[in-house]
């Protein structure tokens, strides 16, 4: 692995992080939980980590809760987390589907197998959106247009080519036997900016996560044609699932937490116990509602199996799209 670290700098970093971030939150107790967030503040992964930490704190399920946003990109954060087990003994790394995607694409050697999966907590399902004045009233109408001339519809998404929103699109089109490689996909820096491009007319169809654009999906300024959830989602109850429309596809962008590799059995058990208890609480339900998230709630070995299944799906989809190596 690149990124070898010397002991003094790691110690200095620890001291600094300790003073800056944990300091205000009181002395570390035995059952403290330190959330390592591999992105800058803002966005879904950061929001998930902070919401989980805050709920644990409110419920008194953790002695002390602290957060650390590691700069320099998710790959670097993952590398640090895997290599500095001692420093991150009590820590939970917050991550999401790109952990699996980048690994399958061959862009980064570390993946969920280098971590100890603790819990998948939140699911964000993909939605397909058109403008309110678009003549396509149903998902079928879009599919018909795409199968007649794949280049006629410009699709946008909130993530890079070959990443989340593009994959969801490819899965949905694959089920309808439309060649996703011939469809024009434009990447934007986040679902919000892609939504603006849809409203402004630069793209015709938007593939994005529900959480990022919930207020729009509810506002009636745009029309949500389908959702990739296994069952209808309460917040947008009028929108059919792909499965209902006859395309047996469901896909979630999960967000969950991981312990460092080789975390001892008792740490694993105590993390799972407190998170399981948290997911049963009203406070957690309220947090899910506030952010427009759907519950996932898979723990330990079940979470690991979930990730393995997703990895298998992604391997097929990405190679069909020509993105895996």
């Amino acid at each position, binding site marked *: 692995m690149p990124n070898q670290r010397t002991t003094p700098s790691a110690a200095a*970093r620890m001291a600094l992080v300790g003073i800056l971030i944990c300091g205000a939150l009181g002395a570390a107790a035995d059952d403290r939980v330190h959330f390592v967030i591999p992105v800058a503040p803002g966005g879904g992964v950061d929001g998930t980590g902070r919401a989980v930490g805050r709920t644990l704190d409110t419920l008194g399920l953790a002695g002390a809760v602290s957060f650390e946003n590691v700069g320099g990109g998710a790959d670097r954060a993952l590398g640090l987390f895997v290599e500095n087990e001692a420093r991150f003994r009590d820590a939970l790394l917050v991550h999401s589907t790109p952990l699996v995607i980048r690994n399958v*694409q061959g862009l980064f050697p570390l993946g969920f197998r280098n971590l100890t999966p603790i819990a998948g907590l939140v699911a964000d399902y993909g939605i397909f959106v058109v403008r309110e004045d678009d003549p396509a009233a149903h998902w079928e109408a879009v599919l018909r247009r795409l199968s007649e001339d794949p280049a006629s519809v410009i699709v946008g998404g909130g993530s890079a080519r070959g990443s989340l929103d593009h994959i969801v699109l490819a899965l949905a089109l694959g089920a309808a036997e439309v060649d996703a490689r011939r469809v024009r996909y434009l990447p934007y820096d986040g679902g*919000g900016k892609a939504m603006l491009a849809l409203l402004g007319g*630069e793209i015709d169809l938007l593939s994005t996560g529900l959480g990022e654009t919930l207020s729009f999906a509810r506002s009636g300024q745009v029309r949500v044609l389908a959702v990739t959830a296994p069952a209808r989602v309460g917040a947008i109850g009028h929108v059919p699932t792909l499965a209902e429309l006859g395309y047996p596809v469901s896909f979630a962008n999960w967000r969950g937490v991981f312990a460092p590799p080789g975390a001892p059995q008792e740490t694993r058990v105590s993390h799972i116990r407190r998170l399981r208890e948290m997911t049963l609480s009203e406070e957690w339900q309220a947090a899910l509602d506030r952010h427009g998230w759907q519950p996932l709630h898979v723990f330990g070995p079940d979470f690991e199996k979930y990730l393995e299944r997703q990895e298998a799906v992604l391997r097929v989809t990405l190679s069909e799209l020509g993105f895996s190596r």
Partner: protein
Amino acid sequence: MWEGIAAGLATAIDPANLAWVALGCLAGTLIGMLPGLGPITAIALMIPVSYSMEPAAGLIMMAGVYYGAVFGGSTSSILINAPGVASTVATSFDGYPMARAGQAGRALALAAYASFSGGVLGALALLLFAGVLAAWATAFQSPDYTLVLILALSSVAAFAERGLVAKSCVAALLGLMLGTVGADPESGVPRFTFGRLDLMDGIAFILVAMATFALADAFHLLTRGDEGEPRTDAGRHVRLAPGDARAIVPTVGRNSVLGFLVGVLPGAGATLASFFAYTFEKRFTSNPACGVAAPESANNAACMGSFVPLLTLGIPGSGTTAVLLGVMLSLGIQPGPRLLAVDPGAFWGVIVSMFAGNLVLLALNLPLIPWLSRLIRISRPVLIPFVVAFSLVGVYLTTLNDFDLYLMLGLAAGALVLRRAGFPLAPLLLGFILSGMLEENLRRTLYLADGSWGTLAERPLTVVLAVACALVWIAPLWRRLRPGHRADAGSGQAPGES
């Protein structure tokens, strides 16, 4: 709407909310003044405070932290040439030379009054036009963004001092190249990272800004060493010079409008606004007072403008507003098209509170000026190590990565060489800041255009922007070719003269 504003007024003048806005502004402006710490850090540090608060009060306070940090951000740009946020880079162009000439107090006072006016005018525009302007944010498409970014880079290079146009272009290109380090925005493939994870996310803005401005300047002073002590009358000019107030009124007026409009565009925001404000203002005047007032009124107005997409569309235009969006969600406020209907108290309350917030900021900042301007009187052998230490610590606290410190020293050495060779560094920093956004929009534009130039003529907005880009290059040439207009280039002071 007027009922909403009345309800917002009631929320905003609630004594508890007034106290929260004051606290938010105080925290924001103090954190923002520190070199290397900007609005993102300020908001992130205040998140735990907001947890237990009422939603409207929490939003009012956190918004105060945001514009408070923008308000205070000019301090380190002016005093030690260390812009902590991209939007205060342009303030250092005239502000730092003023401070070094013994007028630190005047520059800080100008920045404070201009920030206040920009903030108040921006808040007023937000109050009156928030709903209407959401459409303005969706009017801009990828070709338009591409042209706006090219316009910004062109105007900095084309309006450079006489004889420096070519060197400015080279510097801007170097900045664009530095910006390509890291994961490809379209495919996630690493570029120019030499296999190092430290470079995967690109080079941090704060690192490049501190290396090319504060550190390069400190090294420059150290290695030359003969310029004498700074003037000792520094603390005396704590107020505006006579005539300043009258000179900056039109400047502040037009740049607040410009700043607000550019600030509404997601992603463009305060940085572009301040650069546009500076370069265009310098076309009309060489008065350094206007050179400070223009970017400061523009970036504070732009900060207010960035609340338009945030509140009415629920779309964060920048890293800072993304954090603010997270705060709003965790407070239980769902910004977006329905906020106005669901939670009018919070919507109008936060806007009305901005007027109180800006008054608080002015009252906080003005009395600090005599103290701050004394910093510049510290003798150079003491001040320079402080500047170096502040720059290094500021960058380390942002990334917590020791690799970045070596990278920063390397870049500073490179910047010193460029500076000695007569290359201006501002275009380099601007090129770096805009690089990612330009690449992303240019690639989308080219993909959509399918190799045809027709895209440029498709929509009126695109045509106007393309013509503006062309004019920026043609105008100075045309002026130079006209006989009789060659003699007026004697002053050489203002970058705008040709």
